[in-house]
């Protein structure tokens, strides 16, 4: 498809995407914003336009900050297409998407992906049992449905979100059976180096300490530097067992919430085969972008947490920068004007970055999460264990794609979202190669499963019979 339908297409209506779209509109670009959800906000501001006030208050001012973003979006000239699943982007930047069961295509000379991040998988024995969720999932349940876990809840892992969710659940009256932190003790010493820089974000540190204090005061049992975690239960989660301070522990619970940080969602950037680097601090891939978010594919920019984790408040200036880059590339903004607008944005980004090295080091996941034990299921879709993946390495597999071919790991509906990073890291260990040299799964269209008839329909202007899939929302 060659004819342009827009100047700019933005995928993802979280803070980076909204900010990019608003900035683009302010430069006079004809912009369309696509998102799979039915409302703006991404995950961090999920359901911000419809959340009941009581819940918004509980979630706090950081969450409510999204209200103004959403309001500005609806007052703008940006074309909005929600409930839209982007399932293919071609190298010429043609976007193929599905809305209400029907596929359509749009094309623009500039494309910005703001598809954000997802929680890192926390593979450990028993993690596939019903009742095990990510900590962020529990927060999403609050945001989007006003629901909280019933019964006893154990939280396990490491990261600011773990403590935040614990506090929010506490405020909502949930019974917390314990918080089991898994960050190795050594992390604390290593993180001290970055404390001076982190002190440049005093509010952030104060929040963290405040949460810890709150949880202690509420009498929630807390454990640190835990290892040998296992979720016990036959058909559902019934308890978390672990070792801490040399002693074995068992916490009975109906729900176990896991969290080991957040990682960029690289499905789209991998689909387009742009250059990626391995970030050995954040233990994830990051697409390589310039100061305006442009990747190794001209016209294709990525911004926000989809590049590297920097948080919601960094996502806004990052999105705006990408849009300024796009506007410049289209000749709608002069270089001096772009620089003028970019300067304060870069300042904010830098400021938001002060806390990162400290957090990334303090909460670096333990090796038994990134390189789990043999019995641990790594590919949830195809039920492939870490041991099986190591066997494939011994058989001669040099990377994730051969491993995928021989073991089926990565072949299920999630297409490697849950297992990709773990497989790269297991192979890195097993083969004695750097993750950069091990590589990642080759990602192909469709980005998410779509009915065969949807693909068939693109061949033929005469409609093919498609059963109505329910409106996404």
């Amino acid at each position, binding site marked *: 498809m060659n004819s342009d339908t827009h100047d700019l297409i933005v995928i993802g209506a979280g803070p980076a995407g909204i900010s990019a779209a608003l900035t683009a509109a302010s430069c006079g670009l004809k912009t369309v914003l696509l998102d*799979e*959800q*039915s409302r703006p906000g991404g*995950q961090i501001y999920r*359901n911000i336009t*419809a959340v*009941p*006030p*009581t*819940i918004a208050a509980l979630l706090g001012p950081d969450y409510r900050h999204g209200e103004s973003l959403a309001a500005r979006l609806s007052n703008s000239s940006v074309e909005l297409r929600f409930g839209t699943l982007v399932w293919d982007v071609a190298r010429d930047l043609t976007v193929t998407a599905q809305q209400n069961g029907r596929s359509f295509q749009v094309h623009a000379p500039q494309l910005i992906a703001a598809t954000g991040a*997802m*929680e890192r998988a926390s593979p450990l024995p028993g993690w*596939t*049992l*019903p*009742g*095990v*969720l*990510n900590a*962020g*999932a529990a927060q*999403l*349940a*609050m945001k*989007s*449905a*006003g*629901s*909280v*876990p*019933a*019964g006893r809840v154990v939280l396990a892992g490491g990261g600011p979100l773990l403590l935040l969710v614990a506090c929010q659940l506490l405020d*909502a*009256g949930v019974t917390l059976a314990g918080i089991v932190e898994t960050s190795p003790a050594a992390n604390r010493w290593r993180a001290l180096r970055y404390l001076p820089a982190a002190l440049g974000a005093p509010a952030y540190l104060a929040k963290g300490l405040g949460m810890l204090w709150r949880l202690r005061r509420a009498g929630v049992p807390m454990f640190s530097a835990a290892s040998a975690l296992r979720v016990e239960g036959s*058909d*559902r989660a019934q308890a978390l067992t672990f070792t801490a301070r040399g002693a074995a522990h068992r916490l009975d619970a*109906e*729900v176990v919430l896991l969290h080991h940080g957040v990682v960029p*969602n690289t499905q789209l950037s991998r689909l387009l085969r742009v250059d990626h680097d391995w970030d050995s601090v954040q233990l994830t891939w990051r697409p390589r972008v310039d100061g305006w978010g442009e990747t190794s594919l001209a016209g294709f920019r990525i911004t926000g947490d989809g590049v590297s984790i920097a948080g919601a408040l960094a996502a806004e200036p990052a999105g705006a920068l990408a849009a300024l880059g796009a506007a410049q590339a289209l000749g709608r903004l002069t270089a001096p004007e772009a620089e003028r607008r970019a300067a304060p944005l870069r300042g904010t980004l830098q400021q938001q970055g002060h806390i990162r090295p400290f957090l990334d080091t303090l909460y670096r996941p333990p090796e038994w999460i990134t390189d789990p034990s043999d019995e641990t299921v790594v590919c*949830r*879709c*195809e*039920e492939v264990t870490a041991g099986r993946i190591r066997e494939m390495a011994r058989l001669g597999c040099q990377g994730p794609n051969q491993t995928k071919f021989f073991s089926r790991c990565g072949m*299920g*509906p*999630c297409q490697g*979202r*849950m297992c990709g990073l773990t497989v790269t890291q297991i192979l890195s260990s097993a083969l004695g190669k750097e993750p950069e040299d091990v590589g990642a799964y080759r990602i192909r269209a469709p980005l*998410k*499963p779509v009915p065969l008839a949807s693909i068939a329909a693109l061949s033929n202007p005469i409609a093919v019979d498609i*059963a*109505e*899939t*329910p*409106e*996404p*929302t």
Partner: protein
Amino acid sequence: MFRPMVLPASEQRRALEIIVEGRRVPAREGETLAAALLNAGVVQFRRTPVSGQPRAPLCLMGVCFDCLVEVDGAQNVQSCMVEVREGMQVRLPDGARHVGDSA
């Protein structure tokens, strides 16, 4: 596994009903099907096609694909990406998709 938070009457969302495996289940307008099922006490959303293992949602944001259910005849729909509708017919999958006549 989950329960709705207590809200003042003015903020409560309109109640509606969905049908899960033939059973009438209460739900609230605006919530995802996954949330409604969790609130209704559904613990096992499906059994996997590979080995029949029980599964339930992990991520609630559309990346884990463990919340798959059948909605109004459409199989393997991510229930966390669908909002409830009055009278929605839900079935919980046992293994792989079936073709031909609906089982």
